[in-house]
């Protein structure tokens, strides 16, 4: 919903579907909508998982030396050798979700609902659905199906275009 004072537009391409990468697009989309912008999000490749009805997002410390978790006053990164072990992704994900809850940070589900409530337009990439065999009924209500041309059209009308 756009305010009369500020009817700018923002469009973004959402390409990643891990817990950490789910935050920037939904934070920016909800905030932009709150500031009166019309927002359009195009979900493609792994980003499409963010539109699944049941979100089960995870984050892997493997190959991510910047993922240093606060632990006893220090910051500890998990060595790749350990991060490659079964269960390491589940452990890191539950630690991250625990931190998110404790720090008063919204869950991805909450931000996604807020985005839908504030009329953020969501487009699910049809090609990705075919590629990964994702059915329409696997996704939440709200997003429309489309392709690159749908995104390009909204991008040409936007003041801000982001690729995340």
């Amino acid at each position, binding site marked *: 919903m756009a*305010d*009369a*004072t*500020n009817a700018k537009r923002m469009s973004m391409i959402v390409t990643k579907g891990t817990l950490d990468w789910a935050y920037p697009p939904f*934070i920016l989309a*909800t*905030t932009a909508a*709150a*500031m*009166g912008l019309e927002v359009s999000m195009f979900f493609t490749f792994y980003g499409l998982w963010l539109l699944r009805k049941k979100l089960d997002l995870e984050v892997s410390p493997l190959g991510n030396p910047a993922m240093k978790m606060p632990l006893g006053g220090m910051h500890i990164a998990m060595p790749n050798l350990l991060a490659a072990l079964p269960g390491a992704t589940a452990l890191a994900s539950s630690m991250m979700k625990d931190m998110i809850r404790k*720090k*008063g*940070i*919204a869950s991805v589900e909450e931000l996604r609902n*807020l985005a839908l409530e*504030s009329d953020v337009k969501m487009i699910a990439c049809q090609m990705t659905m075919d590629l990964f065999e994702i059915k329409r009924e696997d996704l939440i209500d709200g997003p429309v199906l489309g392709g690159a041309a749908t995104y390009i059209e909204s991008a040409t009308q936007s003041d801000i275009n982001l690729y995340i």
Partner: protein
Amino acid sequence: MTEHVLDAKGLNCPLPILRARKALKDVPPGETLKVLATDPGSVKDFEAFCRSTGNQLVESKVEDGVYSFIIKRTE
């Protein structure tokens, strides 16, 4: 005139802004909304929010770690 207050203490970015946007919808134009927050980032954020939406930030202060903002709905 009822006093409109939003308690956003303990919430992190972007929730104070999102809750404020929602709360402002129930504030008649010309009246004010007071927002309480503990997120230090909210100081710059409420300035930017008000500039972008055309609402007026009447007051912004911090006391005992609690930030309080008074926003006048002018849009």
